């Protein structure tokens, strides 16, 4: 440097206060919560640890888990989507109707099923596009837009089903069912898809430009705009991404029961959002983590599973236990911000 400088002020020593150790522990909060729950569950009923039960739990977590991965992006970017459960129902119904009607021309084969899957992803993406555009260009609060579509999607499905069930053609169902019930290398396919989505989600969030921009926008939209980030585009993309995740989850869901009813996907939005928040993503956006969301989703399903496997408290109080566990887990990881 050109001018002689006075000696550098000494650098403050790195501070490892008890606080920062706690903070680290806090980050692992949901995981510790899940482990604690698993221990309690195993004590209550050793069947909990059987391979088949664990595979049941993870398979169940796949639906809301996949949606929650997409929801993590939306929430980190500062948005919210209340419509995912209704959208899943609508996609399930439309997908079944489309496949049933294709049977005549294409038969009950792979072609029909692939077209059905494609339709599911397309409807999800379109719904996401609608949400994203209305929220950004229409400048309406995400809460309102998706509260509105929450009603609309489910109503349309109910209309399509005339209040009853839309059932998948039995032949197609037989060809399709391995997508839910099948296994690859001994692992149920929904779990594999869930894992793939989570890994991909983590990669996108932490290692791509897009993921970085999502965090920047959620942290401070103005800053992102000044950094020449296409805020509108990135935001719309988060909703589209979530829509595609909903489509994917529905693709796994339909072969499970082969039908869509007005109660399909009921309250999935709450589960998905809760998984994200329990996982340590702040509702106000800016930062979050996919693995936390995955743990959150598994945790929520596990609570229900443990309650079904045991009989220690009145069935009436199941929801109370769920609530209590949620609060306790959050307590473990509190005070990070």
């Amino acid at each position, binding site marked *: 440097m050109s001018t002689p400088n006075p000696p550098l002020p000494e650098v403050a020593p790195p501070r490892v206060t008890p606080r920062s150790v706690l903070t680290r522990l806090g980050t692992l909060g949901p995981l510790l919560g899940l482990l604690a729950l698993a221990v309690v569950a195993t004590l209550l009923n050793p*069947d909990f640890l059987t391979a088949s039960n664990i595979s049941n739990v993870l398979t169940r977590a796949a639906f809301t888990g996949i949606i929650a991965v997409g929801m993590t992006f939306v929430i980190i970017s500062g948005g919210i989507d209340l419509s995912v459960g209704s959208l899943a129902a609508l996609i399930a119904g439309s997908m079944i109707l489309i496949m049933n009607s294709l049977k005549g021309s294409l038969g009950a084969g792979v072609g029909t099923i692939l077209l059905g899957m494609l339709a599911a992803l397309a409807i999800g993406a379109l719904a996401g596009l609608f949400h994203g555009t209305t929220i950004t260009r229409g400048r309406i609060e995400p809460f309102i837009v998706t509260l509105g579509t929450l009603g609309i999607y489910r109503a349309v499905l109910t209309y399509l089903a005339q*209040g009853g069930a839309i059932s998948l053609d039995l032949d197609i169902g037989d060809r399709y069912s391995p997508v839910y019930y099948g296994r690859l290398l001994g692992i149920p396919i929904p779990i594999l898809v869930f894992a793939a989505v989570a890994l991909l989600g983590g990669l996108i969030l932490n290692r791509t430009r897009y993921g970085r921009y999502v965090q920047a926008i959620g942290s401070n939209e103005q800053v992102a705009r000044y950094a020449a980030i296409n805020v509108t585009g990135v935001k719309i993309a988060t909703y589209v991404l979530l829509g595609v995740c909903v489509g994917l989850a529905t693709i796994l869901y339909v072969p499970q029961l082969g039908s869509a009813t007005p*109660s399909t996907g009921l309250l999935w939005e709450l589960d998905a959002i809760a998984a994200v928040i329990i996982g340590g993503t702040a509702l106000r956006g800016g930062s979050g983590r996919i693995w936390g969301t995955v743990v959150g989703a598994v945790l929520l399903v596990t609570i229900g599973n443990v309650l079904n496997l045991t009989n220690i408290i009145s*069935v009436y109080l199941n929801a109370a236990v769920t609530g209590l566990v949620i609060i306790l887990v959050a307590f473990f990881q509190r005070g990070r911000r």
Partner: protein
Amino acid sequence: SQSTPRQVIGVSIPSADHGWTAGVVYHANQAKAALEKKYPNVQIIIKTAKDSTEQANQIQDLATVNKIGALVILPQESAPLTRPVANVKAKGVFVTVVDRGLTDPKAQDAYVAGDNTAFGRVAGEYFVQRLGASGGNVVVLRGIPTVIDNQRVAAFNAAVAKNPKIKVLDAKYGNWNRDDAFKVMQDYLTRFPKIDAVWASDDDMAVGVLRAIQQARRKDIKFVVGGAGMKEMIKKVMDGDQMMPVNVTYPPSMIADAMRLTVESRVTGKPMKATTIIPSVLVTKANAKQFYFPDSPF
């Protein structure tokens, strides 16, 4: 009671949120079309409500704004709707209550009902008969916490108690919902190595239960009994399905019966029977045909 003036009849039912209520909505609309065709002076207004409060509001609107002369109501829940129905009746509206009796019978003029106690009892009796002297392990899926569900489960338990060899392992809520029933059944299968029979207590839940059993490839379960007569399930009974040997009726068409009786009584002026009970009967391969409505959504 006069034949010329216009009769406006209000029909208030739960909105279609699972198979059985969907059937109610379907049959109500069928009956409306048929009755309005038969009696040109009759106008029927159908309203569906998602919960008790909304239903209370709707019947208030029907009475004060639509000025109905008679109300046919299938209450979401008994207790919460007793007072609102009583208020409507106090305004001079003829009230027919369907399925779920009010806590104060004075609030209704006529009552057309399915028989929840019989619904549980008939199923329970079938279990006793089918499992025979050796008995067996039974798991139960309950509906949503409501009085109806309590009545059905109590009656079922009372009936199977006749055979002390029958053991009810557990009864958890499946919320009259396929997905929840699937999960609960999966966990029952994890937890109980030997289950002989399942009372799913509802055909929607039976769908989920059957899938869970299929997935686990368990052979110990001899049969599953749903209930309420969903067309797919009646078809299975007709076809002699091993897992689904019987069903118990709880016909959603009771709403149509109630509407017909009410309208006839209003138009002809003949009094309506205070209580009409539509029995819950066991559907077997022999009589299944008469309970099969392929056009209904349920």
